[in-house]
């Protein structure tokens, strides 16, 4: 079946603009995760959705970052007033309860 998909694959934006990154998880997966991969920082957890529970936002680096998951499926990560330090690859993953996480190909964000 289809894996995790993310769009766009690449996004170039100007400092101060807002961006939206989309994640389509594997159908039926109850958990959805966002991570950020940047040089020198490795892979960092951002936010986690599990079913209908309130999301775990403990990894969000600032209040400019937010995410939502509609209908328990598609998720959108929004970054407001982008800064150059937001440049990174944003990875989405999904899993069944207590299962391994399957990752999408990522969105490479470049803030000029």
């Amino acid at each position, binding site marked *: 079946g289809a894996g*995790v998909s993310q769009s766009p694959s690449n996004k170039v934006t100007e400092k101060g603009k807002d961006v939206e990154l989309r994640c389509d998880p594997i159908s039926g997966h109850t*958990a959805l*995760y966002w*991570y950020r991969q940047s040089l020198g920082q*490795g*892979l960092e*957890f951002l936010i*986690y959705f*599990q079913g209908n529970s309130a999301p*775990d936002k403990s*990894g969000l680096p600032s209040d400019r970052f937010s995410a939502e998951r509609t209908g328990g499926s598609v998720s959108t990560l929004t970054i407001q007033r982008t800064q150059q330090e937001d440049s990174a690859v944003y*990875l989405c*993953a999904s*899993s069944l*309860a*207590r*299962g*391994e*996480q*399957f*990752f*999408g*190909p*990522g969105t490479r964000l470049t803030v000029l």
Partner: protein
Amino acid sequence: AQSVTQPDIHITVSEGASLELRCNYSYGATPYLFWYVQSPGQGLQLLLKYFSGDTLGQGIKGFEAEFKRSQSSFNLRKPSVHWSDAAEYFCAVGAGNTPLVFGKGTRLSVIA
């Protein structure tokens, strides 16, 4: 605090030689352990997972990993490396259905 250490940033091995990538973790509960592989420009692919029981985890592409509780280690091994194994390898730890904590990664180069 939960953490994963991959002490080797970059390793170069000859094709056909054996491989061991080191991973040490710090985790409060019984961990779920994973190795992921990332080729350039690609997302993360699960190489193998270890939940509990046996000390050896078997993965895809001929990889295996040995869990040593006393040393808090989960080293990845392969008896004979192929040129196509050149990639970045990440060790990760979690609690089953929680965000993963990743190591910084080890880049593997394979020479003829």
